[in-house]
């Protein structure tokens, strides 16, 4: 099981760093919002994998909170972009 842990958490770490790279480099505001949404999914995956391998149910509450708050953040950024578009035009 340890090799599975290393492999899958390694993939997720790589995916997370790619997401952060997308936020930092040459991106429009919408791109950054999409990358942020993706980061919350990757974090949820990471929490599920690590708590599944350690068989420790303590981190699952964190994953529920991440899902809820990440969704609220996505919708808030989307409405902000919309209101900014309306204010410009």
């Amino acid at each position, binding site marked *: *099981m340890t090799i*599975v842990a290393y*492999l*899958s*958490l390694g*993939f*997720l770490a*790589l*995916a*997370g760093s*790619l*997401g952060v790279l*997308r936020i930092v480099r040459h991106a*429009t505001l*919408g*791109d950054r*919002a*999409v*990358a942020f*949404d*993706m980061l919350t*999914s*990757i974090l*949820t*995956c990471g929490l*599920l*994998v690590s*708590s*599944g*391998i350690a*068989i420790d*149910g303590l981190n*699952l*509450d964190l*994953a*529920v909170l991440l*899902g*809820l708050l*990440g*969704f609220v953040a*996505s*919708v808030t*950024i*989307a*409405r902000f*972009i*919309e209101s900014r*578009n309306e204010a410009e035009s």
Partner: protein
Amino acid sequence: MSDTLQLIRDVVSAVLMLTGSLLALVSSIGLFRFSSTRARMHATTKPATLGVLLCAIGAAMQFGDVSSVAKLAVIVVLQLVAAPIGAHMLGRAVGGK
């Protein structure tokens, strides 16, 4: 007999978790490969949601008690419902192709 069952259970949940994390990796590669923001949203919602679903099923096979499996079901339902709605609102706000 229960040893082989445990082995099968471990192998299946390991495969599921590996596949889930590979899908998450592919979806973040897709953030770079696609050329427009709305196309990148395709890459964000679909493989990532399936990845969370597979990781959750893999983790649920390892847990024995009902409360953790119930929390995992809540996580999956939340992800399945919230990801398309978030993508829809972002797709409306962001213009372009």
